[in-house]
């Protein structure tokens, strides 16, 4: 700690900067790093901006994973990916289980925000085995943010 104290003292001594001082090497280095960070960020944003073609609509696509049976219940995991270039809001995924031509069970899930190429995952839970009937999982609606 005593080390830091002595450094403090020196920094106080040459404190008043009424006369114009050239920038020290330390200040030059930290400025260069800062400028580099800022320009990299602006570069990335410009890359995103220019790299974008005509803005298309969001394309939320749902993929269903293998069914898992957990303590008498059937879980159907799904993944929701937005394949479009625009963010979708309030993406609604609905599931419908038809057994012998009749709707036996339904499920509904809503994802608040789905950025371009973002993937969210979740699962629908049924009490009857979906393999014994017809399972429909689809994106029902979304909102443009």
């Amino acid at each position, binding site marked *: *700690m005593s080390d*830091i*104290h002595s*450094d*403090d003292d*020196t*920094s*106080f001594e*040459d*404190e008043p*900067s009424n006369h114009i001082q050239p920038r*020290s*090497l*330390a*200040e030059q*280095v*930290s*400025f260069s*790093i*800062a*400028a580099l*960070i*800022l320009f990299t*960020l*602006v570069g*990335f*944003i*410009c890359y*995103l*901006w220019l790299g*974008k073609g005509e803005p298309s609509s969001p394309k939320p696509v749902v993929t269903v994973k293998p069914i898992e049976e957990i303590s008498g219940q059937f879980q159907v995991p799904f993944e929701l990916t937005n394949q479009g270039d625009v*963010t979708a*809001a309030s993406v609604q995924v609905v599931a419908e289980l038809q057994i012998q031509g009749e709707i036996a069970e339904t499920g509904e899930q809503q994802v*608040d*925000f789905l*950025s*371009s*190429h*973002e993937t969210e995952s979740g699962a629908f839970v049924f009490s009857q085995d979906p393999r014994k009937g017809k399972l429909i999982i689809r994106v029902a609606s979304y909102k443009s*943010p």
Partner: protein
Amino acid sequence: MKRRYSRQKRATWTRELEDVIRGACGGFLFGVPLLYTMEVWWIGSTVAPPLMLLAIVTTWTVVFFLSRTEGFRRTASVSFGDAARDTVEAVAIGLVCTTLLLWILREVTLQTQLSEALGKVVFESVPFSLGVALSNQFLSSSPEENRGQSSQASDPAQAADLKPEISGTLADVGATLIGAIIIAFSIAPTDEIPMLAAATSEGWLLATIAVSLLISYGIVFEANFANKSKRQQQQGLFQSPLSETIMSYLISLIAAAMMLWFFQQLDFSDPAEMWLSYTVLLGLPATIGGAAGRLAI
């Protein structure tokens, strides 16, 4: 002669580092409440690149005018060029600190889309950059004042006195509690803590603890803020910097847990892991507030 030169050189590096750390700590103090606001994450996720650039330009302009009067450096930068350079640094410090915290809080991960990550970082960094620019203004006192206080406080007669030790400790505990409550009380009842807890894991909680301790230590001891010399001479159980940082972190954690319980985010029937993750996540803003509170006394 050569030795004197190298000593001077070292001093300028140290001063530069102190300036940057002081700026970063100011940024943390100012920026953390907005970091725990999910609406800003959403805005960041959906914002278009031109608006990101506009946000950077706006921040840069506001910070520039702040830098012309104050800025994060001890040396007042009044010339146009100096203020412009300091502004670039202030904005960059804000961006780096924001990225670090968003990374630790798992709001930005390797799986996050570039556009979403950039949007979140740019929008969350606005108050951070303002905090960097204001750090000298609200956290620094004049060096002469500091000096007077330190020579006064290092009086050996005072050290022998037991009474100030107890009252000093109590004052520190009180100040930590007040600071922690001011910053974390408005975050505790919101949905952000459960959301962040859902996204984190044990390893990241450890990282959150480490970052909380580092920022708290930085604010009170390394950043050369107001009353720092006084603090290092302060009597009481919180005497050594390390023990003060750890003690105040524990106090902030207890305060965070109590606030979460008060707002019914946590219940005694909830599992221990939930208590742990919620408390550690709210402990980050609480300990930053606590560190600021101790500076105020």
